[in-house]
């Protein structure tokens, strides 16, 4: 099979996609069917743009699994539907001519497959012997809230709303946004931002980006692990028992209250670490910087366990009831503590 040349292999894959096991209820017309019957009736804004739409429905039950791997295009998953998972795939190709666009459409394959309790969709591009492929593929999914969702796109964004089952969302250059979720296991981008709101989870929420910001709001979790390299990490109105927020050149900002016996570690190398505190729980503080300054609006009583210390670059002491532990560290950035 290694010796199939790529063209024949593409034909086989296309055919295979058509012959994929058909679920028990009606589909929309298959891609080929639509093309055969009414090529001109597809949504075209102009002759050089060709569109294909495929819809599939899967009966996976309330706790099924959905795996989506897209390349150039967004993925949107929303809770809803009447117990089924519906997947709509829209391919849009732009070419120099109608024929060219249609050829491009055909070359980009979307493999949809189903196994008991699991549905999978994967976009595949051809080996690039040809000049630019201008095709985007959009996945839109509705699924029961308890579904496990794994979604990744290379240059598109990933947006997941209302899914309380386990969620893994990744994009390379696109943004990741998760709202009203439950078990967010991983949310990650390289150059895009990661935005998470309205998540409740008795576990760890992990999110990171390399050059994008990571923004978490209104979240109730046991542990937060957030990081970026050059982006900021911003956390607001969260309830968490432990938190580790890090950036290298971006700022780290925490706004909200602390939990008794909570442990909070915020670090940036050259950015600012800022805590704006509300609520009644105080903290034991260990703040240090190599060359940055430490500035607090809250009165810190120097002392506490481990000995007290106060200098321009280090501050150890207690605020309020000392209920939580707060470690703020920078290398050259500043540490700032404010009251809400």
């Amino acid at each position: 099979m290694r010796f199939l040349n790529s063209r024949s292999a593409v034909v086989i894959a296309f055919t295979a996609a058509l012959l994929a096991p058909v679920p028990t209820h009606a589909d929309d017309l298959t891609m080929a069917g639509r093309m055969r019957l009414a090529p001109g009736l597809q949504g075209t804004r102009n002759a050089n743009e060709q569109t294909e739409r495929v819809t599939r429905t899967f009966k996976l039950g309330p706790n099924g699994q959905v795996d989506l791997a897209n390349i150039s295009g967004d993925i949107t998953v929303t809770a809803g539907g009447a117990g089924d998972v519906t997947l709509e795939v829209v391919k849009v190709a732009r070419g120099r001519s109608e024929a060219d666009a249609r050829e491009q459409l055909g070359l980009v394959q979307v493999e949809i497959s189903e196994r008991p309790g699991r549905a999978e969709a994967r976009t595949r591009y051809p080996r690039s012997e040809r000049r630019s492929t201008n095709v985007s593929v959009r996945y839109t999914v509705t699924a029961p809230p308890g579904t496990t969702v794994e979604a990744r796109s290379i240059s598109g964004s990933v947006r997941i709303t209302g899914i309380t089952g386990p969620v893994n969302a990744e994009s390379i250059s696109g943004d990741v946004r998760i709202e009203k979720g439950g078990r967010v296991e991983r949310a990650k981008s390289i150059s895009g931002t990661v935005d998470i709101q309205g998540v409740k989870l008795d576990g760890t929420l992990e999110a990171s980006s390399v050059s994008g910001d990571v923004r978490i709001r209104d979240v109730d979790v046991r542990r937060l692990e957030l990081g970026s390299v050059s982006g900021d990490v911003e956390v607001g109105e969260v309830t968490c028992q432990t938190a580790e927020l890090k950036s290298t050149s971006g700022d780290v900002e925490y706004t909200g209250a602390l939990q008794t016996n909570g442990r909070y570690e915020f670090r940036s190398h050259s950015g600012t670490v800022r805590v704006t505190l509300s609520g009644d729980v105080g903290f034991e503080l260990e703040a240090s910087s190599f060359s940055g300054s430490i500035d607090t609006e809250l009165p810190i009583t120097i002392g506490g366990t481990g000995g007290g210390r106060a200098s321009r670059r280090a501050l150890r002491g207690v605020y309020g009831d000392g209920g939580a532990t707060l470690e703020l560290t920078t290398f050259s950035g500043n540490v700032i503590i404010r009251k809400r």
Partner: protein
Amino acid sequence: MSCDQYPEAIVELADGTLPDAERRSVEAHLERCAACRALAADLGRIRQAARTLEPLPPPPAVWLRLERTIAADAADRGTTPWFRQTRWLALAASLVVVAGATALMMRDPAAPPEAPPAAGNAAVGEIVQRIEGELKMAEQHYQTALADLERIAASDGSVLDPAVTTALRQNVALVDRAIVDSRAALDSDPQNVPARESLFDALRRKVVLLQDTIALVGEMSRGNQAGAADIVEGLKKS
């Protein structure tokens, strides 16, 4: 003995596997026979050249595709979700456990040290050295991976935004600067906790970035090219 009988013996002579008794007779023949001498010389050259043929490192993409396939195998057998498996298996960036380092870092400089400071520093220095040694190896793979990525991004039909590879380069440079800064600080003040933590943190951050970049090459070579192997894999699933 005619020359026809000598070539094998000559070869064995060159290999050093010729028994002593025969060696003298072969050597004697070589002194008399120019043609066999020429043969011996040629074979020696060929042998030397063969020894110097360069090792050819396989491209990192091979490992990543392999890893992916192995993970898919495991997934098929229901052992682990395919998506999660490939995450931190980045071969090139396997590192030494830093638990020892963390233990050292927990020592409060204000409290009496359990070991003389010099020993503590030496241990830290050694750990840093070991990590950096591993990083250096990973670095090579990273550079190759990044170059691959940039080539993919620049090629026609690529879906990878060149801004991503730029972002990766810039961010690794950023972390490198943090490493340099921290190390300089630590040199000037070896007991300084923030400097030490900064260094370790930056080193760890770099590992993550390298792993991300290398994994990205795997993604691109898998998702972006419907190579025959991929299609076969896809066919197996549909």
